[in-house]
């Protein structure tokens, strides 16, 4: 019977966290995207799609500030005619959207949403699967979504989706390298891949990018932490930009933008399958933001030594500090999603060769050198001064060599006509 109870609790966690926290974030981020980009462009955005109360007998419709708009979009996509063109390869055509959405939603398992809550004496962690290989699981599963896009482009049996699919696949594979390499410094620093433990350590000893407290006291960080901030910041930048590229989001959305390829790999898809692609893209964006927040910005931690106090909040025997942390996590997530939206509407998209060069030449080398730099800084207290200086000199030499090699192997701009 205790097994049945634990299975039931697991099911509740899965349903609550995936379907009541992450999946609603998709229409929320669609709504924010439309409102925020409207405000950036000096206009208003959807603010009228309310509930038609006049149909129910009230005097005036209430507009709900346009929050019903994503629901209206969902209903529209649901009720549209869902047809399969004659010239597609049916199996893969039907399989592709599912392969895009499912990995994004599966990766919700390992993200720590909050600190443990206690109900009736039973402590429950707010994470569906507290496995010891957190980020690796996320990368492995989200690589499966590359299959979804490839199959979508290929099975559509049409020129533009095919090009879009190929481009998108190449782009996603290229940036997975810098994605994985860039967080090695973080994992080296914490010595652990368990995301729940990483967040707990950040709650105690300062966020990675804001290390202003330690062991319950506010204070400026010591030399090693300050020096480590540099590779941590470089890792943050590379990781964030790689997440942009992984989710096919501006400025890397060449495979799917309208001016380039009609609709890219999802041209031939109509209502519900298109909705699945759409949801998959936004869900991947939400998961990417969640990962960035977890690894670099403290996850659910409120920070500044307030976490211990929050953990002790309780009504009777129900300790609800974890729920406060959940709300904090969601706030940070939404701020990051707003940053994604800001980048989309600020930066013009990259040309395909610039994109590839960025992934393979610049980020790959930078992430590699970052790993060595971080390793040097982390190991410095245990090494003698001579080894540290040798290491630093070697690092500078290797960096210079890499930059020199990249520079001379660039193509000279050829004149247009000989």
């Amino acid at each position: 019977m205790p097994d049945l109870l634990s299975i039931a609790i697991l099911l509740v966690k899965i349903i609550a966290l995936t379907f009541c926290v992450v999946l609603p974030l998709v229409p929320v981020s669609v709504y924010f995207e439309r409102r925020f980009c409207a405000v950036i462009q000096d206009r208003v955005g959807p603010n009228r799609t309310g509930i038609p109360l006049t149909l129910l007998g009230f005097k005036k419709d209430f507009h709900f500030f346009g929050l019903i708009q994503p629901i209206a979009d969902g209903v529209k996509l649901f009720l549209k005619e869902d047809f399969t063109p004659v010239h597609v390869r049916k199996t893969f055509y039907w399989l592709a959207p599912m392969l895009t959405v499912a990995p994004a939603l599966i990766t919700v398992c390992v993200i720590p949403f909050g600190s443990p809550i206690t109900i009736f004496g039973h402590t429950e962690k707010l994470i569906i699967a507290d496995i010891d290989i957190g980020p690796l699981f996320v990368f492995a599963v989200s690589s499966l979504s590359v299959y979804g896009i490839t199959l979508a482009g290929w099975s559509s049996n049409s020129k533009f989706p095919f090009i879009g699919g190929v481009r998108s696949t190449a782009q996603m594979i290229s940036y997975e390298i810098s994605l994985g390499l860039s967080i090695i410094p973080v994992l080296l620093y914490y010595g652990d891949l368990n995301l729940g433990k990483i967040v707990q350590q950040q709650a105690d000893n300062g966020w990675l990018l804001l290390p202003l407290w330690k062991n319950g006291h506010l204070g400026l960080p010591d030399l090693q932490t300050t020096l480590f901030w540099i590779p941590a910041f470089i890792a943050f930048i590379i990781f964030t930009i790689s997440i942009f590229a992984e989710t096919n989001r501006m400025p890397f959305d060449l495979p799917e933008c309208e001016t380039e390829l009609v609709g890219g790999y999802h041209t031939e898809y109509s209502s519900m399958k298109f909705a699945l692609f759409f949801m998959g893209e936004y869900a991947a964006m939400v998961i990417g933001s969640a990962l960035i927040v977890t690894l670099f910005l403290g996850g659910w931690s409120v920070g500044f030594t307030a976490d211990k106090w929050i953990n002790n909040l309780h009504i009777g025997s129900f300790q609800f500090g974890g729920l406060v942390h959940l709300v904090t996590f969601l706030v940070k997530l939404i701020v990051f999603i707003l940053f994604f939206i800001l980048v989309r509407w600020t930066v013009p998209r990259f040309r395909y060769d610039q994109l590839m060069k960025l992934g393979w030449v610049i980020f790959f080398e930078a992430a590699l050198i970052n790993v060595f730099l971080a390793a040097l800084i982390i190991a410095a207290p245990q090494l003698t001064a001579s080894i540290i200086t040798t290491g630093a000199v070697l690092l500078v030499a290797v960096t210079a060599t890499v930059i020199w090699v990249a520079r001379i192997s660039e193509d000279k701009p050829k004149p247009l006509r000989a």
Partner: protein
Amino acid sequence: MAVVKLKRPKLNFGEKIYFGALIKGFLLTLKHAIKSILGKSIGADSLASSGLGVTMQFPEQRWDTHLPEYYRGAPALVTDEQGRERCVSCQLCEFICPPKAIRITPSEIPANDKWAKVEKRPLEFDIDMTRCIYCGMCEEVCPEQAIFLRKDYLITGRSRADMLHDKKRLYEIGGVRTGLVNKWNELK
């Protein structure tokens, strides 16, 4: 014709890094966003915005007070200050109307009428507002200064019959207009 060889401009280090340009871009868009939310976008006051960006949100706010002098709204027939209907059913507007929205049936003014000198007036005058393109050619061509384009733009109706403005409706919309040339009056 000389051939001009174009070279890509050489970027300096700061431009190649691109981060400076990115940060400037973010600040620009954020500035626009914050100004929009506060209602202080550039042009918000001259475009009579509703308080968010420069958009005038239509049914709650109208731009009726901002319509320029030359705005072309719905056409209407006018009566002058002497109470005479100005139209003499010469049918010039009917012939010049590009989508042929105007249909006129002319008729006679009886000999015992005060204005018998004028000889003609319209029996029926229909403007089909679903055809009217608000071009103003009827106003330009009218020799009697009888038809004018007003400033109303919200011409709606629940049936096709509603959208056909007949003579009574046209004179109702048009009203009385003063300051016109009264060429049919007696010479002093």
